[in-house]
């Protein structure tokens, strides 16, 4: 019975997270979004494709930095204390401010550059901002359990065999406990980046009135762009309330998948 509920949960999470996979299957556009205009279909698919790329790139960069910082924080006390103070400082600044300050001012530069070049720069700027904002929590999430493991009995016996601190930490990094920690940290990074990307897209759309910036479309910006269809009775042809609700439902679906993953892990913890 417990196994069945576990399988059902995995299937449920897979279904909830499917928008990211479907976004890369453009031949499904007409089947899944039959009631909306082709232009809107393209925007929905495009925004989720961009979101997938943003999330994966941020995850890769943030995880590498987190592992390196977490490892060296325990290896060297001085480094750990300094990095903790810096990360505390970063954490005291709201994430949306960091993103706005990193991103919004370069929008005019991105608009004047070529499409492919501005796409790459836009992604890099956002990944930088998202990594900065996720680092304090993720480094803490890795360094604390690593430090706990290092001070347990078996680490002491490692030391008795003459293993260096660096080597013990490398071994501990490959332990099952730490692999679970990395999985939890990844889910947390993904969720935070998703929230930041969409809130940021919404704000930019609200303030600057375009699909985010020229090179960075986001479901959040799409929701903001379609917000008038919700409460405006005099809609022009082709604009339906579905244009607001569709990205909302897809966004809720993927967020719920991450939350369930994170919730599961916290319960197991």
């Amino acid at each position: 019975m417990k196994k069945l509920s576990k399988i059902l949960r995995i299937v449920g999470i897979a279904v909830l997270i499917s928008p990211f996979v479907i976004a890369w299957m453009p031949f499904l556009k007409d089947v899944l979004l039959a009631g909306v205009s082709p232009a809107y279909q393209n925007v929905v698919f495009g925004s989720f494709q961009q979101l997938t790329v943003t999330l994966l790139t941020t995850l890769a960069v943030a995880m590498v930095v987190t592992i390196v910082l977490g490892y060296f924080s325990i290896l060297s006390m001085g480094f750990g204390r300094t990095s903790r103070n810096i990360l505390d400082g970063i954490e005291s600044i709201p994430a949306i401010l960091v993103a706005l300050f990193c991103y919004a001012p370069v929008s005019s530069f991105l608009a004047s550059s070529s499409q492919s070049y501005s796409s790459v720069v836009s992604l890099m700027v956002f990944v930088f901002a998202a990594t900065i904002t996720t680092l304090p929590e993720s480094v803490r999430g890795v360094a604390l359990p690593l430090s706990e493991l290092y001070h347990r009995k078996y680490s002491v016996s490692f030391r008795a065999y003459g293993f260096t601190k660096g080597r013990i930490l490398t071994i501990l990094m490959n332990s099952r406990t730490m692999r679970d920690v990395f999985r939890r940290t990844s889910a947390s990074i993904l969720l935070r980046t998703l929230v930041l990307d969409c809130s940021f897209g919404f704000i930019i759309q609200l303030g600057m009135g375009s699909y985010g910036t020229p090179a960075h479309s986001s479901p959040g910006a799409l929701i903001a762009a379609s917000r008038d269809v919700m409460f405006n009775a005099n809609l022009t042809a082709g604009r339906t309330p579905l244009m607001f609700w569709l990205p909302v439902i897809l966004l809720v679906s993927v967020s719920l998948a991450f939350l369930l993953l994170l919730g599961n892990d916290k319960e197991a913890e």
Partner: protein
Amino acid sequence: MRFLNFLLYELGLRAILFTVIGTAALSSLYLLSIGAPAEQYAQAGVSFVQMFVGSGDQAQSRAGFSAGEIIASGAAVTFPLALASLLFLILLSLTSASLATSSTFLAKDHGHVKSGQIFKGFGFVSSFLSAIPVFVGFWFLGGIYGISPPFILIPILLVTIGGLGWDASRFLISEMRRQLDTTHTLVFGTLGPPVGRVFPLPGTLTGYLVNSCAPRFIPYIAGKVPAIIGSVTVAEMVFSFPGLGRTLLDALLTKNTDLLISAVFVLLAVNAVVTFIVKTVLFVLYPRWYEKAL
């Protein structure tokens, strides 16, 4: 002496220094990204100082707002919104953690399986609410009440949806469940206190558990203040509240560097004040835990 050290570290070092460094870092980032020449950096610093120590007319002519007006918008809108959200977050996490822990206790020790199942359903609903982006909720609220919704609904919405309340409740639930299995809780339980299902009142079992978890819960809440301020900023941008969020967006749009730096400074100062209040609570109630956390 202890209190003096606390003030020196939390107010002097963390609050003031982090606010100044944060403002300098964000402003430099902004100036760097708009490709400002070197002299504009110094000019921005000078005009920032002039805005706060100079005359109101001088600030009005440079930034369009006087320092008093920016501080007033932070004090009148952003600060109360952040504080109300924080209080509601604490209230929500205490209530949901009491419900969850008492359900676990009753299911485990008294065989009341039904209460556990009810809480599982409640947990799924709260996960679903957390998955709704906070700005969608704000826009929905805007659709019902227009651009000036009742003030109190904003903190409630900010905490209930978007994950803040979910995360805080999860944290407290896992801490309280861990405490439930400890020997001292078992001993307290033998005295036959009321369970305290809905709220952890003093003298109840859940009240006892919250008391044991508070030294870890309070720093956690302090860490959530920037996220609350961020969401309040989003709310101010969506609605017509003349708070710092709106001022900041206007400054970004008009590329008004002086106004931008002042608004960021006041926003980070509000952040620091709310964090300082939470840390003071920890220091006064649990001084040993505060020192341990350092």
